[in-house]
């Protein structure tokens, strides 16, 4: 067995430590790092499945020009030439980078350095704009810098954790588990979830406030006013360290909390919990950020903590949790259009001079660049002549994604560097450059509590793939900037970045890792997770602001007077409000997670959560398909009828792309409206119309290989044996057997079938050499065959392909609940009934379910409750 390498998970901003041990047979063993302060050995389902995502399927292995393989030299020459020509002919602002919170800090640093210090424009924005920008702006308005005051320990030390706009259970599962564990050992600890949806996170909530979407400010203003009324304001702290209290309070006091739609009882319960618990942490995430008034929402939360002095002390403070592994690192290097570097300000001449001097660069932009939405607007207008997209997929993730795709298509020159050849964005590029990914890269990331951890390589780069920092430096050198980009290693870049932070710190900035500016290559290699600041004089800090020292020019924090905007009246043509978000087992646009069959079993298809009343009035039944549309675009999604969502609200996941579904890029229906301060798009409040898709027939394909169906609806996912593809279509094929042969591209396979033409029920199984290579199931209703059973037959000669389910004497294990041990819902329910199991632990003892990663425990509890409920009813 080879050596175990400690690295950091590439998914959310929790930043869990992962121990990876490559096996002799080429497999990769993955486990949680018990020494890492983010997770102490825990991993979520996504992290646990990382070993299933390192294969080379779909990887881009050589550079391509015009989607034809090219040499690195030719590709890099072309990129350099196009950028040089654009700057020469159209000026510095005619070029742009669109980068990613998944880049490592060192990649990010050189990208930012190249475009700002050498190409001379601040047109670098990042997918963090879609994720964190409102928090950044809110932090800066309140604290003077983009500073997360607390750390993860606060989540466990708090007496009250308020989770607002955060489905922590799915989006930051390890943090959720830490809170759940703390609450289990200290039941007096309370958890409040503020979310229009009854998410999985509500599983541990003492109080769930299903407020109307977009009314967070009213709630927190009400809280501030109540805090004042009940004498909870820390007058001393406010007097000494806070500005703007009176104005903020005035506005807050005039806010009508009724717009939240919450009952008096609910708001009273929330306020009294908050006032009774000094140790309170308010965790917020995309539900707050992704809003056209997200920055104000952030400040309404921070206001409450500032007014009560509950900030920067153990168990207290506002706490932004980030969605990407290195959103924080990107903010630290300044890789956003409105930042400079090391939390320095682009508008500040002194800061500019400082950075330019440090870099000894030819130039430095005086003004902020274009933020994401404006950037692609400029691309569309032809103002951007050369665009470089690194490590992200704006064709899917940007609001009004169809517009963004058009803009990218129309751009004179687009280069994409990515791990994968066929992302929706890469398909539109003139040049694609193969980049290394997790497991191949070396560098650092910063998580949500300012802890810098190493990502380490345990795989050799595949094909001709290069590291992002190398690619950027290669282009920079071709542009004639040898001096600034003569880096040999990430460690060398890191040292420069750390040194710059020391200069920034001298300017009164929070971000300071100058203590690491002298790390040797060996120290860098053995670097253990370290929370910043780490100053040259050895000063460190677990938390900021308890001392009342802020980074504003006055040194005082700012409370902002923020008003609850009018809640928008729903329009007749688009009466539903579409909320968007993540699911537990997928991440971003699925380019990595969709490789894991295990992860695809949680939600295998893009879906639309809709309230039963709305579903009924629209004539939608469970598992029907619905069209979700507005003037921007159109999605087709599987209907999940549930009262988790409020009447009038619907929810859809963000993950699906054109690679995995016909019409499920949810950003296609999201308007490009942005927060006026942060420029962050309002991704959770699209106005949409919904109607039944009403196909002639529904279908399911299970296959040993990937298929590309041409049906009007399709959604595919990888299984343990191949692929599973849900389809639906408007016209009935003349011959189902021919349809199946065409779909599976298997003209010579042995066909067996069941046909009920009158109902469009068809089942066609194709065998070659006695083994099942594919099966088609169609119906006039959503197809009800067991996906688990049918996919298990692929590649075998076992009977039952046409039956689509086990016979009654061979029970169907049901959909997988415990992904670790592959135990299905029916198996669990059966054990609960037959073995009289009364607890999740008992289920674990009987079946092992839930005894590994534990992520299914709430689901086991739900099954248990359901079974008991039924027993009681009987």
């Amino acid at each position, binding site marked *: 067995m080879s050596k175990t*390498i400690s690295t950091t998970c590439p998914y959310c901003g929790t930043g869990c430590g992962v121990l990876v041990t*490559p*096996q002799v047979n*080429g*497999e*990769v*063993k*993955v*486990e949680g790092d018990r020494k890492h302060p983010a997770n102490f*050995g*825990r991993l*979520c389902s*996504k992290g646990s499945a990382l*070993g299933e*995502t390192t*294969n080379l399927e779909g990887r881009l292995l050589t550079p391509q020009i015009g989607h034809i393989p090219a040499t690195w030299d030719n590709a890099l020459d072309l990129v350099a030439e196009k950028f040089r020509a654009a700057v020469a002919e159209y000026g510095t602002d005619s070029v742009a980078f669109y980068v990613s919170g998944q880049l490592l800090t060192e990649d990010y640093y050189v990208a930012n350095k190249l475009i700002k210090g050498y190409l001379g424009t601040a047109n670098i924005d990042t997918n963090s704009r879609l994720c964190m920008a409102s928090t950044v702006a809110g932090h800066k308005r309140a604290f003077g810098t983009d500073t997360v005051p607390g750390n993860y320990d606060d989540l466990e030390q708090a007496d009250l954790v308020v989770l607002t706009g955060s489905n*922590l*259970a*799915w989006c*930051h*599962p390890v943090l959720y588990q830490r809170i759940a564990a703390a609450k289990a050992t200290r039941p007096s600890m309370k958890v409040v979830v503020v979310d229009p949806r009854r998410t*999985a996170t509500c*599983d541990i909530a003492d109080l769930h406030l299903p407020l109307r979407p977009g009314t967070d400010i009213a709630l927190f203003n009400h809280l501030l006013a109540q805090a004042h009324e009940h004498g909870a304001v820390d007058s001393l702290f406010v007097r000494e360290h806070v500005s703007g209290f009176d104005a903020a309070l005035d506005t807050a006091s005039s806010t009508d909390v009724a717009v939240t739609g919450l009952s008096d009882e609910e708001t009273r319960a929330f306020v009294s919990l908050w006032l009774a618990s000094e140790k309170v942490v308010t965790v917020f995430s995309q539900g707050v950020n992704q809003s056209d008034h997200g920055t104000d929402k952030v400040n309404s939360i921070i206001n409450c903590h500032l007014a009560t002095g509950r900030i920067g002390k153990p168990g207290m403070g506002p706490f932004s949790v980030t969605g990407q592994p290195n959103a924080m690192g990107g903010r630290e290097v300044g890789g956003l259009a409105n930042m400079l570097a090391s939390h320095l300000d682009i508008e500040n001449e002194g800061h500019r001079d400082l950075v330019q001097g440090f870099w000894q660069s030819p130039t430095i932009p005086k003004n902020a660049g274009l933020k994401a939405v404006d950037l692609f607007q400029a691309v569309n207008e032809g103002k951007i002549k050369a665009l470089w997209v690194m490590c992200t997929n704006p064709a899917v993730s940007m609001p009004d994604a169809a517009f963004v795709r058009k803009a990218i298509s129309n751009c004179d020159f687009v280069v994409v560097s990515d791990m994968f050849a066929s992302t929706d964005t890469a398909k539109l590029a003139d040049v694609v450059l193969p980049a290394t990914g997790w497991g191949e890269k070396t560098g650092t990331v910063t998580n949500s509590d300012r802890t810098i951890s190493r990502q380490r390589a*345990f795989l*050799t780069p*595949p094909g001709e793939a290069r590291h992002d920092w190398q690619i950027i430096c290669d282009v920079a050198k071709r542009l004639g900037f040898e001096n600034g980009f003569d880096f040999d290693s990430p460690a060398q870049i890191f040292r420069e970045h750390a040194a710059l932070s020391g200069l920034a710190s001298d300017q009164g900035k929070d971000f300071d890792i100058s203590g690491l500016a002298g790390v040797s290559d060996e120290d860098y290699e053995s670097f253990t997770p370290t929370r910043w600041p780490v100053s040259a004089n050895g000063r460190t800090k677990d938390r900021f602001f308890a001392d009342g020292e802020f980074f504003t020019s006055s040194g005082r924090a700012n409370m902002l007077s923020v008003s609850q905007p009018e809640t928008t009246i729903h329009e007749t043509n688009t009466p539903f409000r579409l909320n968007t978000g993540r699911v*537990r087992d997928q991440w971003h646009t699925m380019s990595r997670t969709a490789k894991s069959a295990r992860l695809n079993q*949680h*939600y*295998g298809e893009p879906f639309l959560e809709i309230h039963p009343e709305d579903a009924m009035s629209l004539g939608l039944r*469970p*598992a029907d398909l619905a069209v979700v549309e507005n003037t921007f675009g159109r999605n087709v999604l599987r209907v*999940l009828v549930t009262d988790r969502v409020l009447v009038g609200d619907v929810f859809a996941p963000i993950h699906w792309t054109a690679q995995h579904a016909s019409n499920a890029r949810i950003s296609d229906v999201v308007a490009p409206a942005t927060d006026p301060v942060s420029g962050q798009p309002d991704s959770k409040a699209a106005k949409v119309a919904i109607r039944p898709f009403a196909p002639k027939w529904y279908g399911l394909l299970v296959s040993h290989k990937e298929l590309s169906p041409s049906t009007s609806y399709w959604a595919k996912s990888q299984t343990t044996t191949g692929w599973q593809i*849900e389809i639906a279509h408007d016209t009935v094929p003349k011959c189902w057997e021919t349809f199946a042969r065409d779909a599976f591209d298997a003209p010579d396979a*042995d066909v*067996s*079938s*069941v*046909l*009920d*033409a*009158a*109902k469009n029920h068809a089942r066609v199984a194709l065998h070659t050499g006695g083994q099942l290579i594919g099966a088609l199931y169609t119906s006039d*209703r*959503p*197809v009800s065959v067991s996906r688990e059973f049918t996919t298990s037959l692929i590649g075998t000669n076992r009977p039952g392909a*046409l039956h689509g389910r086990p*016979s009654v004497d061979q029970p169907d294990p049901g*959909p997988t*609940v415990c992904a670790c*041990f592959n135990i299905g*819902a029916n198996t669990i329910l059966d054990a609960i009934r037959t073995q009289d199991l009364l607890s999740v632990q008992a289920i674990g003892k009987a079946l092992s379910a839930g*005894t*590994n*990663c*534990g*992520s299914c425990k*709430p*689901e086991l509890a*739900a099954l248990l409750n359901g079974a008991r409920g039924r027993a009681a009813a009987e």
Partner: protein
Amino acid sequence: MPQKLIIIGAGMATGRALEHLFEIAPEAYQVTLFNAEPRGTYNRIMLSLVLTGDKSFDDILTHTDEWYEEKGGVCRFGEEIINIDRSSKTVTSDTGDVVNYDKLIIATGSNPFIIPLPGHDLEGVIAYRDLDDTNTMIALGSKTKAKAVVIGGGLLGLEAAAGLAMRGVSVTVVHIMSHLMERQLDEAAGSLLSKELTNKGITVKCAANSKEILGKHGRVKALLLDDGTELPCDLLVMAVGIRPSVALAVEAELATGRGILVDDHMVTSDASILALGECVEHNGDVFGLVAPIFEQAQVLAKTLAGQEARFVNTEVATKLKVTGCDLFSAGDFSSNDDREDIIYHDPALGVYKRLVIENKRIVGAVMYGDTQDGTWFHRLITGRDDISAMRETLIFGPAYQADAPPDPMLAVTASPANAEICGCSGPTESPDMNAKHVNESNALHDRTAA
């Protein structure tokens, strides 16, 4: 004083009728049994097993002389009734004996139909009806390089062909219709059957018209077809159908159609005369399969015992047995505009099933190659059950109906719609479990750096 009951014919129908009669009215009649065949009642259906050698004749005897006599009956086997005199209520046997009756049962069965082709009376041209025919075929099997032609691709002809083939005889089946067993199977099932028989070494010629039976020295030599094909043979078996044996009844001026007309009580146009079995016609139907005839036997026994009973000809479904082939046919499977088909076809496994649906009900079922669910379908046909709710999996049989079909929503999400699923993660509780996280990767090549 018991009445005198005379029965003409001791076939399966008679055997079953007397079983019932002796049970419900043992003292009511003095029974006399005439049978042209010089032996007791045997299971004619099982003659095919005698032909194949799987059974001896003793094995298929169901009611011997001893059995009847034990019950008080008088057996006059080998004696053929040649006349009925209704006015004197007597019958006359071929020995000239005249016997009077109070009640008479005609159970003369059917006669094989012999196509009046030139040469049909040559030696070596037989029907497949009784033990003698069977023995003739068995005898042929002991001859080397023997050849036989069977005219008729119905159940009986195929049984003959299969039996002969098993005895080493080279057999050709000549069938006038486009596919075998056209009354019980549709074309697809017929062609599967044809394929299976071919695999057993039987030559099948469908849509073939016989023209003439050729002979030599008074003995069959070959069958000549319309198209000029000559099929040499040592034996020609004609199995093209049966005709109700009605000659005695016609002569006695009983009402007849295709068969002897009986009412629901199995009584003929003469109140003293009853009839049952393959010789009767009831409501326009004549009978060849055993199930409705056994039903008639019960009704007839009750009628004789003075009990009320009526014969109703229900849907007929019979598991057909051609040696080595699995067939099932039930109900009506002809197509029309109101009918919808569910068809299961697995050529590799040799399985074909077709259900004919009309107005939410199964009206017909044909199965080939896997007939184990036949009785279940038969029950659904006769029970006129609404099958809408299980239509998608109906054809897979009862083993796929016992519980609700999988919820299609479960395809999308592993959790029931009303169950919350949590985010994730507990600490790794057991080090052993890490093995679960060892996952496939690097399928294309080993790129482990370490």
